């Protein structure tokens, strides 16, 4: 296991390095941060001063060298716009993204497993078709559309929930609810399919021949086997959430890393972009290891 993690860490480090190099050069193709930081009628002298202050006037390879040097000293540079260490800004935002992603994913997993299993048991029945259609429609409706309609309905018309922002648990309901829809729609289908095939597995027959009750039959014998393919999909979906949920964050004023990322990209705040990619990539790497661990916990055959 430790060897596996080590190997993956090296592979990921390699990927991450390539990624960072690509981002570094590609992002610098996208224009001059000085023009964006300063007002439109700023003088050329001011722009030059800005570039000089942030080292943007040097040749790009020199900039790259300096960046590498700093990164090796764990210095990820300063935000061009916020006059703060980029990594601090990113970690602050990540402290919001992480619980949002985890809460959402936890709910998705619980709901998808429960409803997906029910659908698999009633295959072809009303519940099965209902779950399929609702999840499919939910997953194919634009999320910003749902978000704004949800605000109109739940915050304004019904006045049950605050419109936006963070602070109380109530504030989390709508963002979590809207982020929930798409991964749920996908995972519930995977759970259903996986449960269907697991239910026809021979060991289920054995369990029935043993006289095992339906409850343990489903949730002890079948589910654990059915979870294996589901975990891969859960991993992909969780990775998407760990990258930040830019639309939901934008609409609900949620200070997460998705909004930070798009703002930094649009403002060409290169150091923040780099730091954000670094942090999200590490988070996803850790999650992948957790997924691997989950695999080997669930399936003893993988342990060797």
């Amino acid at each position, binding site marked *: 296991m430790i060897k596996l993690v080590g190997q993956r860490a090296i592979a990921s480090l390699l990927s991450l390095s390539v990624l960072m190099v690509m981002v570094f050069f590609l992002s610098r193709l996208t224009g001059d941060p000085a023009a964006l930081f300063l007002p439109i009628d700023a003088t050329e002298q001011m722009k030059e001063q800005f570039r000089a202050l942030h080292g943007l006037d040097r040749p790009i390879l020199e900039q790259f060298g300096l960046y590498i040097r700093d990164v090796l000293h764990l210095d990820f540079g300063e935000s061009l716009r916020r006059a703060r260490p980029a990594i601090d800004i990113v970690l602050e935002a990540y402290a919001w993204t992480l619980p949002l992603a985890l809460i959402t994913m936890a709910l998705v997993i619980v709901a998808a497993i429960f409803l997906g299993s029910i659908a698999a048991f009633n295959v072809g029945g009303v519940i099965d078709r209902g779950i399929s259609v609702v999840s499919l429609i939910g997953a194919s409706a634009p999320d910003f559309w749902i978000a704004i309609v949800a605000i109109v309905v739940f915050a304004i018309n019904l006045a049950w929930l605050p419109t936006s922002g963070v602070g109380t648990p109530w504030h989390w309901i709508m963002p979590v609810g809207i982020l929930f829809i798409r991964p749920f729609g996908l995972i519930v289908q995977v759970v259903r399919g996986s449960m269907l095939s697991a239910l026809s597995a021979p*060991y289920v027959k054995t369990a029935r021949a*043993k*006289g095992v009750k339906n409850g343990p039959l489903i949730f002890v014998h079948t589910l654990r086997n059915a979870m294996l393919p589901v975990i891969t999909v859960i991993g992909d979906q969780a990775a998407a959430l760990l990258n930040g949920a830019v639309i939901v964050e934008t609409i609900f004023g949620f200070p997460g890393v998705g909004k930070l990322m798009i703002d930094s990209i649009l403002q060409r705040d290169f150091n923040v972009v780099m730091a954000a990619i670094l942090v999200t990539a590490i988070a996803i790497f850790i999650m992948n290891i957790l997924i691997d661990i989950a695999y080997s916990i669930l399936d003893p055959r993988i342990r060797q």
Partner: protein
Amino acid sequence: MPEALLTVKNLSVDFHTARGTVHAVRNVSWSVNRGETLAILGESGSGKSVSASAVMNLLDTPPAEIVSGEIFHEGKELLKISYEEHRALNGKKIAMIFQDPLGHLNPVYTVGWQIVEMMTAHGRPIEMARARALELVTRVGIPEPEKALKKYPHQFSGGQRQRLMIAMALMLKPDILIADEPTTALDVTVQAEVLALLKELQQETGMALVLITHDLGVVAEIADRVVVMSEGEIVEEGTAREVYHKPRHAYTRKLIGAAPGKGDIRQPGPEASVLLEVSGLEKTYGNFTALKDAAFTLARGQSLAVVGESGSGKSTLARTILRLEQADKGTALWKGRDLITMPQRDLLAIRQQIQMVFQDPTQSLNPRMSVYQLISEGWEIHGLMPDRKARRARVEELLEQVELLPSHCDRYPHQFSGGQRQRIAIARALALEPELIICDEAVSALDVSVQAQVMALLDDLRAKLGISYLFIAHDLGVVRDFADTVLVMKEGEIVEQGSTEAIFSAPQHPYTQRLLAANLDPDPDIQAQRARSGRAAP
């Protein structure tokens, strides 16, 4: 007549499928008493498992529908009691074991957990269950039972898994044990051990044993009474001896007639030129030696059988000769040229001369290709027979040669039965007019009657076309009927080779002797005699 322990009366079950209704069993009746062993004998599709599934309430309804019938156990009508009542009965009064213990054991739980669950599911305290599990696992002969309980199914061998299944089934001392093809996937020696274990346990506990099988040998070895099923109906019943010696029904006669190992032993033909000469062939996977210093020669028109149990290296031998795996050492001279070191380009041309028929035609035929595409693919690869019409005609001819219809050209493999599929695979091999066909357990997956047909076909082709065979098998009966030379392999080594006559009548190596002893004879009398003379495997 006292009331039997378990009685199935006039049971009829239909399966409703998208393709229509299939009458799986019709008017099936049988019963079994305490201490008795009843065998239900039949080939695939005969419906032999259906009544047992009905007893265990394992039929999925739909698609299955129990049209009529009754099942009595201790005064209860099992088809009328509630789901919950039936559940309480399963495992406790009637237990069941299955053909494929790897599939039927849950891969993600320890075997200990699964065995213990048999008791906890019926409300027994867990400490008691643990103690009993340990006792039974020891009893069924698993080494290091304490450790074994903490292991997972994949960590055991096939025979051990079946023993564990048996231990699990016996946890609650059931009255009846239903065993659905319990030894089919096992090697002969292991099969003998497991059957012996079942026999012993039955004698200890006095339970009734219902054995579902396709193998006359198993019936002869263990059954007191037998019912023979064909196409959903019971065609014959009686004691094992009665049925074997005085079969009344034509089907039973056919079945007994098809049992291999009864024909004349072939005598080696006159000396012919050497086609293949293998020497010093070796293959290792990591620390595991799959093949050690294999050497033999194969003459034109000869059928050479390679026998051995799983893991003996017989498939590896075939695969290294074919260069599906690269051998570590050694040579395989094909008409004087070494296949092992031959460049890829030359090899492609030679592939035309050596063809292979695999064990499972369901897997070896690409499910997305039609029969025509499958058979003609070789010509496409080797640029033969460019004329489409000629191709078509030749495919139809080949199909007729393997006793299929020319109209089958445009069908897909799934539309055929197992035996038909294997014939398609043979037709495909024949299409390239090879000089050698390697058959890797080519008939093991087939029903006896189909097996006999396929073997007859191969034999016929040898006579007509002078094809040589490298015939890999574990079924000694088939080998005895077909081969003129036999290689016996064990743990990667050829332990004995000689003419079929010599091997079967005077085996030299202890392993060959053991193998022959464990081979079940379909005649109950011979089996009984063997048991008496103590030649049965320990």
